[in-house]
Structures are given as structure tokens and as C-alpha cells.
């Protein structure tokens, strides 16, 4: 089949969504299909641009090129997943969250801070609600994304997990004295909370943070906070690291601490499981909760510094248990059948009609 993958791209920015689209394209090709990515440049501000991008997507005709039919369109990201096609399957990475669950969140969402934000919010919600059901089948990146789609738009979808990049290359080595937190430095990932928790620990817990900052001033804020909390000697800021270095850090970590706010999916959790490492996360961390089993493959703490500190202390104190939970995490990953083969098989299944 000739299959197009519709997504959006913010020019000059590369992240998980790009890796995801490429992973799908490669998997489709590996299954014998012709597959291409169509990436629409996307700007979400001022809010009126969002609606213009919806219209631009709706005006695109991707049904055939040079007289040869496009057999299928797989939509991944808003608003590209609204591009019409008679044989469309949507696999939603996430909706435009600022119009949904982040609407009331003035620090993580910025739509609410625009004077005409509410107007754009209503237009986005309406477009999603009206146009997503055009697809033959709707899948979501995780149960969390599926639940949001149901809550805000009343649309049913099926969660469909996919593996992280280079899943086969994750491995486990003997644990050293640090917890690993790989992620972009941003308010939503809540590195601040981990620093505050570190100040509350009773054990000499150390945390290595890997990842660059969305906003350089935020990186400074975090470093200033670690100094203020007097935990700077127990913190390492690695900045951006290569994929190889990242896997090595996972392999040698005692465990992974990952406490974002309402994550869509959370590669970090899956990567930790692949590296046989236990994961500490929070009760409001969203997608991570679909994978971490409290007291079996890691710990789930309340999202406050003291509770998180207790979880970090617990992991730090009992290395044998940490190792056991890490192995259980790996087994759980394998039991979930997460693979690109399964993704391709599911997305191309014709009996998945709505």
C-alpha cells in the first residue's frame, strides 16, 4: 500500500514526535509498504493562526499524486490529523492540549493567556469533535490520551502503544549511586519537584538530570533552586546527551525518577523498563501510571516533595529490592507486546472500522 503519515512539525525543532513518525514510517516500509511522512509546519500563536492551520489542513488533497492513489492516510498530530482522506486512520499522539486539559493551567498552557484564547479554544474543540470521527478508526498513543479524547470530545479510541527508539539496545549494568531523570528541562516535567524532594531525603540520594532546556532561563532557575535548597552537590546536570550515552546512564542507574505532570505516554518509563530499572513516578503523572506498578516495578508517590523524598529514600536504602523491581519492569514491558509489528498490524487492520 501507499501510505502517508500526516503530522506537524515546528521548523528547526526535533523531538519525540518526529522520532515517532519516523519509527512508524520505517516500520511500514519494513512491512513492505510505501510510506512517506507529510509534515505540516505548525505555529500555534497568535491563537487565530491555529484555526487558519486547521483550514489549511482541510484544504489539502492527499488522495492521489501523479495519477496514483494514496491508499491510506495515518494522522498523528493536530491539526494534520484533520486532513481529509477516504481511508484515514488517526493515531493521536495528543490533541492541542492547551485547548483541553491545559486550558486552566496558566503556567503550562499559554492559550489561556491570549485575549482571544477562549475563542480559539472553542473552535479547536469543535473541529476535533466534528472531524476526528471522519476517520475509519481512531487510536490513541496511550490510555491517558484516549481518556482525554473521550472526556473532552466524547470520542472513543483504542490505546495503541509503541516502543521507544532503539528499544533493542537498552541494557542493564550494575547499579551505581544515582537516580536518573532524562527529559527536557521544562516546568511540565517538574525537575523542580525532584529538587525539592531531594532536599527532603534522609539518604544521600543523588540525581543525574539529562536533557536540554526548552527555555535557557529555566535551566538557570533550576540551578539556582538547587543551590538555594543546598542540594547542588547531589545533583548532576548533564545537558543534552547522545542516545548511546543516555542508554549507558540508564544501564548504570539505581533507578529512574520521572515525575512529570500528566504525561501523554512517557518514553522514559518504557526506556527504564527496557533497562531493567525501577521507576519512581507520581500519582498525577499521567501516561507513566499505565506502566509502573506500585511496589512491583517501582513506586508511585503523591506529587509533593516529602512523599517523593520518601520514595527516593526507599529505593536508595534497599538495592536488592530495586534490582528486583527493575527486572519485574522488564518482564512487564515484554508482557505488553509493545512492538512496531503490532502497531502496523493494528493500524492497517480493516476490521477496525468505527
Amino acid at each position, binding site marked *: 500500500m501507499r501510505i502517508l503519515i500526516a503530522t506537524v512539525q515546528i521548523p528547526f525543532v526535533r523531538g519525540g514526535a518526529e522520532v515517532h513518525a519516523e519509527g512508524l514510517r520505517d516500520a511500514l516500509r519494513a512491512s513492505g509498504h510505501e510510506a512517506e511522512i507529510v509534515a505540516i509546519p505548525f505555529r500555534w500563536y497568535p491563537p487565530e493562526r491555529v484555526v*487558519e492551520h486547521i*483550514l489549511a489542513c482541510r484544504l489539502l488533497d492527499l488522495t492521489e499524486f501523479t495519477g496514483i492513489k494514496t491508499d491510506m492516510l495515518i494522522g498523528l498530530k493536530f491539526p494534520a490529523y484533520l486532513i481529509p482522506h477516504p481511508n484515514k486512520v488517526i493515531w493521536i499522539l495528543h490533541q492541542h492540549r492547551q485547548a483541553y486539559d491545559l486550558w486552566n493551567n*496558566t503556567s503550562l498552557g499559554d492559550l489561556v493567556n491570549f485575549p482571544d484564547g*477562549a*475563542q*480559539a479554544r*472553542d*473552535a479547536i474543540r*469543535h473541529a476535533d469533535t466534528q472531524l476526528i470521527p471522519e476517520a475509519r478508526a481512531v487510536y490513541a498513543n496511550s490510555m491517558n490520551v484516549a481518556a482525554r479524547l473521550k472526556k473532552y470530545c466524547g470520542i472513543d479510541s483504542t490505546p495503541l502503544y509503541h516502543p521507544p527508539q532503539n528499544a533493542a539496545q537498552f541494557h542493564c549494568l550494575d547499579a551505581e549511586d544515582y537516580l536518573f531523570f532524562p527529559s527536557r528541562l521544562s516546568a511540565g516535567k517538574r525537575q523542580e519537584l525532584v529538587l525539592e524532594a531531594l532536599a527532603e531525603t534522609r539518604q544521600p540520594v543523588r540525581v543525574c538530570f539529562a536533557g536540554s532546556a526548552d527555555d535557557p532561563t529555566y535551566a538557570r532557575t533550576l540551578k539556582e533552586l538547587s543551590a538555594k535548597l543546598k542540594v547542588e552537590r547531589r545533583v548532576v546536570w548533564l545537558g543534552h546527551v547522545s542516545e548511546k550515552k543516555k542508554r549507558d546512564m540508564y544501564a548504570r542507574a539505581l533507578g529512574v525518577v520521572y515525575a512529570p505532570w500528566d504525561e501523554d505516554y512517557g518514553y522514559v518509563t518504557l526506556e527504564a523498563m527496557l533497562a531493567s530499572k525501577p521507576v519512581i513516578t507520581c500519582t498525577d503523572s499521567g501516561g507513566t501510571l499505565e506502566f509502573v506498578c506500585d511496589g512491583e516495578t517501582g513506586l508511585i508517590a503523591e506529587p509533593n516533595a516529602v512523599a517523593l523524598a520518601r520514595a527516593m529514600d526507599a529505593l536508595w536504602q534497599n538495592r536488592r529490592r530495586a534490582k528486583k523491581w527493575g527486572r519485574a519492569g522488564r518482564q512487564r514491558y515484554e508482557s505488553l507486546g509493545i512492538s512496531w509489528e503490532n502497531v502496523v498490524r493494528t493500524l492497517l487492520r480493516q476490521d477496525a472500522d468505527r
Partner: protein
Amino acid sequence: MKLNWFSPLPPARTGIAQYTAQILPALSARADVTLWTDQTEWNESLEQHAKVRRFEPERVRWSELNLADATVYHMGNNPFFHYGCWQTSRRHPGIVVLHDTRLHHFFAGVYRERWRDREGYVEQMKRLYGEDGRRTAEAFWTTRGGPEHIAEAYPLTPLALENSLGVLVHTGEAFRKLAGEKRWPTIYAPLPYAAATRLKKRRRSAATSASQTPYRLIVFGYINPNRRLDALLEALASFPERTRFQLDVYGEMWNADYLNERVGALKLEGLVNFRGFVSESELNCALDEADLAVNLRFPTMGESSLTQLQIWEHSLPSLVTTVDWYRELSTEAVAFVRPEHEVQDIQTHLWDFLSDPKRFARMGQKGRRILERRHSPEIYADALLKFAGQTETLHRRAITHRLSERVGAEMGAWIHPRTKNDAFNRVAEKILPLVV
């Protein structure tokens, strides 16, 4: 429902502040209201019904406004009271309540006095009214007077509605006009007034009145030239039975020296008393004592009259001008004065009054019944909140309109006339599902 409400607030000396005070109890019984004001002070009593928040138009925290379900802006002709409200409405879409349907005074004040932006004013006049508008704007800019004479032909009202989701008007005529344009969803709700219960006045009988104290005429409010006091003074001066009347004028006057001079020149001293601005209770006493109110306007800016509702609250008969909102009033509740025959009509009504004061008293009672039936704040609040409850739909409609304008401007610049219709139809088909 959470509601943002941008309006002048008491003690600001404007009818719109009074209006907000009138509607607020009914409104806050039905919604969670936040009053937004750029005034530095307001009557504390308002805070029994709503939160009061100060704002500066240049530093609005949009997230606070966005977290309400709807925003309502009140527009009138005084730039001092409405500038901040208008500036906010241009950026944060909401429902606009038009207290005046011709807003040229407001925009002349903004462009000429506040911004000193001749180019901008002329450009807006040209954009809305073409070359004719441009010429008029150029001519007006160099005059020192107000825009009374051009406000009707060039109301500039669309400038106040640029980003509005919908419009609420207080006159049937304004509703027909705006609804007919199909640009903005529009509703009509008569100006609300919380009528106090008043004891029935002891009206004098015609028999006793003839030889007793004179009948009391009353004019009140802010006395601008359009209140036609000139014409009333002239009518009184040449009225043979003028001594059977006494005229009391309450409120600030645009030119007290001139009016005093006129009273002297017309030999009306003793008959006419200028009382100035008085407390509400003093005005209420005066209205209770009065026999006939004179509530003329010419020209008007398309407003409905809070003064008229106050007159009716006191079951007073009144003379009004046959213009705009006043023209729609019941002949059973008011007596009409034609703008082109003011003196003649006033005198006719004074004769009629003297010959049958009971008929005029019945007019006042009819007015009171109209006030209670049609101008109830509860009915008004229900209508307004029902409209505001459609904000989500109104948002989509407005954004689609903007999108259509953007597409029209973009495509209109290069598309061939022969393919224009097909192309626009295709785009329209894609836009439609975004609204419906």
C-alpha cells in the same frame, strides 16, 4: 455562569453606571459576576452583589477574563467612561451592549481629543463610508464643534463592534437595523429599571388647581443642548397661562450662564428654577411633587432613556420628542413633541394639560405599568444570560467570520474572476464544519 462585566460604576455620573446598579441584583442572583472597572473608586454597596476588579487596558490579565464563561461590555458615547472598556473589547471578544447606537461622539473624542490621530480618524471614516466619509471627516476635523450633525449619517458604531461576538440593544429600531445587517447576532431587551414601590401621589383636581399653586414641570438629568431647554423656555415665555406653571430644572448644565441669561431675556424669573445636581432622595421628592415631566431630546444618539424610566417610576406624565427610541413609546403613556414644531407642540400639550390634568395623570399611571411589565431587571437578566450562554457558539461564528475575511482578502488578491466563485465555494465548504 461566570460573567465579566465591563461598565462604568456608581458614583460615576452616567446613566450606564446607574443601569449597572439597577441590573446587578437580578444578574448576580443568576450568575457569578465580576465587575471590571478602570475607575479608582466605586460604591461599596456593589460588592454585596459582585466582585469588583480594577483593570488597566494596557495590562489586562487575559487568563482571568478567559476563565469566565462570557464577557459583557457596555458602550456609550463618553470616552472618559468607555475608553478602557472599548480597548479591552477590541482584544477579548464579548457581547457588546450598545447604550447609544450612534457612537460618533465616542470615536471623535478618542481620535481627536485623546489620540490626536487625524489620519486614523479619516481612515476609519473612509473605510466605513467611502469617499463621502473621508470628505466629511476632513471637514469635521478642522471644526471646533461636536459631531452632532454628522453622527446620524456616520455613526461609526461598527468600530465598537469589530471584535464583538454579539450585540444587545435597547431599542426595536436598533435591533431591526443591526439584525438586518446579519453581521452580528443581535438581541433586543428593553432597558431595565428596578422600580421602587411608591405611594400614590395626591394629584390635585382641576377645580382646585386653577386658583391654587402652579403646576410643577420638571426637567432633570445632564442638561445638554439636545435636552431642548431652549425650546421649552421659549414655549413657556409665549404661553398666555404661563403663570399657572413652575419649571424646576435638576442636574448639571452644559452652560449655566447662557441658560440664566435666556431666562432673564424671556422674563421667566420666578417661573424657572435651576436647582443644580441634587441627591437621589431630593430628586425623588421633586419627582413625587411634580405634575408633568419634560424629557425632550434632539438629536439623540439612539439611546433609550433611563430618565424616562425614572419618570414612569413616579407615575409622571411626560412630553417626549418623536425621535428614535422615544418614537416607539405608547401614545397612552407619553405626549409627543415633533422636533420641527417644538414650541407649538409644547404649548398645545400645556393647554391640554390645563384642560384635562386627569388624562395626563392616567398617562403617568400607564407609564408605570409599562415600566413594571417591560423593563423588569429579572426579565432583562434572563435574556442577557441566555445570550451569554451561547458564547461557545458565538465564538465559533466570530472566528469563522474572521477566517472568511482572511481567506477573502488573501484569495481576492490573485484569483481570476472566472474561477472565483468555485474557489470561494470550496473554501466555504471547508469552513462550514468548523462552525456547524
